[in-house]
């Protein structure tokens, strides 16, 4: 037989019944108050709700907060039934409760039965998701004087309300000069800019517009003028001219891109990349002072021509209308790269090496004669005898290279004249005025006597003296004896004498003329002016 449990004694059963009755009686008399884990809070906030100022006044009316079983209500429904303002906040999404949007979890933050003086709010500042109300406590880990923050430090009136000036006492105590300036510049509506997450104070990371150089010192308000909200601060123009227009020593002539030359470090020591302009600096221009071209700090409108700056430096006294760069390189005035061919007088031959001044004395370039004689009059070994057109004979290489075309003269050289040296005809270097008659050069041979009184050309050509061609008049038939124009047949030794003996032998003629007194074989024509058969 199994023994009953030790607790199943008579006294135990009686006690159990008595305790059950006692509990039921106590519950009935206290309105279930015996199940209350503690006194209701007597802390009153705000005005009374339906005549009740605090939960403590509800006393044993448990059903006000605790819905009866099977009613379908939850405790949160009971809370919001009275706290209609909270209900409105949740419905509208505004206020403290609206941001939490946990309408079914009042007990997450609020509870009761913790004593008459206990707060209904259990919010743990260290765990309260403060950022959900729009302000994180990340930057407020500890009070300046030590210790953790309490709700009332920032919410002296109520944890559900916040008056921005409450920030100032603490922050002014930490850095009064800065805060005084900060408030004066940006106002005291702290939450307009600060959300507790980002610090916009001294440690603010101004990364969107790095504050370097000269931007480190100015106060916020210097750039963020009149900005008292975060949106306004963020809307601050980042263009240099937004703040520095009054500082623009260029009076706007250089546009708005200050950063192309200046750095935030300082306005001075601007470093313009002249290559980005239409006038890259090369040669001597690299080392030139800015002001030497940009006189009176005029940075625009300088012009791109050399004359814009170098008009006064022109050693040519304005002779050349064109740009200097046609001849001069930027490396220096002495670096001339002039193509003389542009002038129509290309420097060739002997003209290539002489210094410019040889032809352009005294820096005179314009008007320099292009004729040879313009420069070489002093060099004319012909002393002007051949006129002024040297090039008619001489090449540009050197004087010695000449090629005279005698045909262009009044005495074209033909025949044997071609092979004769100039001096044979132009003795003494005299060329002009040289007579063109044969006798000027060729002495009349004695053999011609006086018989041939005509010009040489009557019988001779320039090809050679002989054979000559004589066509009369001849006192004696030139065809006599079959001479056929051969003078030597009758004039074997001289044209001024004749000899008949080549055909008429002296012995025969002597025999034949033995009867003629004074016969002589040298005076045949005296008796025979014409041949016999022609007599």
């Amino acid at each position, binding site marked *: 037989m199994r023994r009953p449990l030790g607790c199943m004694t008579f006294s135990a059963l009686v006690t159990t019944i008595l305790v059950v009755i006692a509990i039921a009686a106590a519950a009935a008399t206290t309105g279930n108050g015996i*199940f209350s884990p503690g006194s209701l809070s007597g802390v009153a906030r705000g005005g009374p709700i339906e005549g009740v100022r605090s939960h403590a006044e509800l006393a044993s009316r448990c059903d006000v907060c605790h819905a009866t079983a099977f009613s379908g209500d939850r405790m949160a429904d009971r809370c919001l039934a009275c706290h209609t303002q909270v209900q409105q906040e949740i419905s509208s999404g505004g206020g403290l409760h609206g941001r939490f949007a946990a309408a079914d979890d009042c007990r997450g933050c609020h*509870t009761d039965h913790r004593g008459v003086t206990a707060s209904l709010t259990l919010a743990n500042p260290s765990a309260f998701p403060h950022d959900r109300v729009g302000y994180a406590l990340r930057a407020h880990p500890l009070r300046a004087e030590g210790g953790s923050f309490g709700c009332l430090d920032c919410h002296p009136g109520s944890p559900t309300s916040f008056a921005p000036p409450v920030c100032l006492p603490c922050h002014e105590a930490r850095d009064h000069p800065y805060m005084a300036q900060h408030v004066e510049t940006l106002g005291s509506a702290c939450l307009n800019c600060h959300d507790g997450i980002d610090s916009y104070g001294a440690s603010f990371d101004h990364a969107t517009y790095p504050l370097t150089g000269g931007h480190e010192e100015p106060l916020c308000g210097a750039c963020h003028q009149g900005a008292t909200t975060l949106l306004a601060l963020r809307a601050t123009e980042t263009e240099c001219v937004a703040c520095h227009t009054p500082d623009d020593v260029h009076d706007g002539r250089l546009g708005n891109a200050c950063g192309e030359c200046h750095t935030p470090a300082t306005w001075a020591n601007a470093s313009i990349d002249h290559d980005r302009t239409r006038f890259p600096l090369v040669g001597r221009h690299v080392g030139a002072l800015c002001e030497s071209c940009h006189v009176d700090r005029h940075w625009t409108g300088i012009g791109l021509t050399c004359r814009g700056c170098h008009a006064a430096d022109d050693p040519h006294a304005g002779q050349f209308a064109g740009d200097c760069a046609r001849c001069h390189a930027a490396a220096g005035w002495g670096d001339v790269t002039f193509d003389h061919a542009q002038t129509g007088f290309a420097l060739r031959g002997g003209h290539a090496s002489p210094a410019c001044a040889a032809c352009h004395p005294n820096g005179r370039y314009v008007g320099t004669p292009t004729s040879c004689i313009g420069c070489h009059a002093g060099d004319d070994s012909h002393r002007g005898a051949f006129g002024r057109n040297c090039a008619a004979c001489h090449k540009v290489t050197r004087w010695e290279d000449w090629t005279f075309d005698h045909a262009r003269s009044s005495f074209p050289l033909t025949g044997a004249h071609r092979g004769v040296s100039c001096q044979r005809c132009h003795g003494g270097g005299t060329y002009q005025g040289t007579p063109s008659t044969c006798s000027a050069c060729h002495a009349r041979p004695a053999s011609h006597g006086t018989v041939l009184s005509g010009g040489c050309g009557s019988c001779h050509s320039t090809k050679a003296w002989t054979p000559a061609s004589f066509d009369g008049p001849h006192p004696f038939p030139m065809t006599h004896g079959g001479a056929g124009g051969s003078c030597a047949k009758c004039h074997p030794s001289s044209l001024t004498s004749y000899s008949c003996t080549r055909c008429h032998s002296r012995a025969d003629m002597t025999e034949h003329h033995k009867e003629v007194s004074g016969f002589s074989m040298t005076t045949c024509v005296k008796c025979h002016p014409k041949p016999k058969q022609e007599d």
Partner: protein
Amino acid sequence: MARYSELALALVAVIGITLLYGGHVRAVAVPAAGGLLGHSLGILGFTMMLMTETLYSLRKRAMRRPRGTMRSWLRFHIFTGIVGPYLVVLHSAWSFNGLAGALTAMTVVVVASGFVGRYIYTAVPRTADGVVIEAQDLQLLLDAARQEVAQPSPAVGTSPGPGRSREQARRRLRELERQMAALRWARRMLATWHTIHIPLGMALFVMAVAHIGAAMYYATLLR
């Protein structure tokens, strides 16, 4: 020390729990009875109290298939009987209102009663395995001892010695007579203690059930 090992273990557990609890109080706050930690303390403590109240009692009645010695179960009973109520007290969050407050107080009373009962209980003679020596058994042992004392000395060489054997028998007799007297006292005290302790325990559990029911009703069902 082995005799009180369960007390030492309970003391160590209580100290450990106290340190953890104190650390939580220092770091956060007193764990609210309705919070996760507070509820855990209460549930674990009450479970241990239930084990205290039932397991040892069931073992005492488990004659057919007993598991473990009575002494081991008693030590476990004592351990849970100390640590469980301590957890329940911590669960109260030091607030003693209404039924919950009365329940806490009743817990303390029942534990105190249990301590008293434990020492009354140990006064009851028992065999080596902890089984209570029934008065009838003790009487038989006593009669045998008296008979042994009254018998003449056995032959030399068959016993340790006539003088020594008789003296041992006398000491055994005195011990048994003392145990018999103690048993009578202990039984009276134990009966009296049972009369008080068991109703207190029942009251405690009835109140605990009411408290748990109310808590579930108000704090869980009607959240």
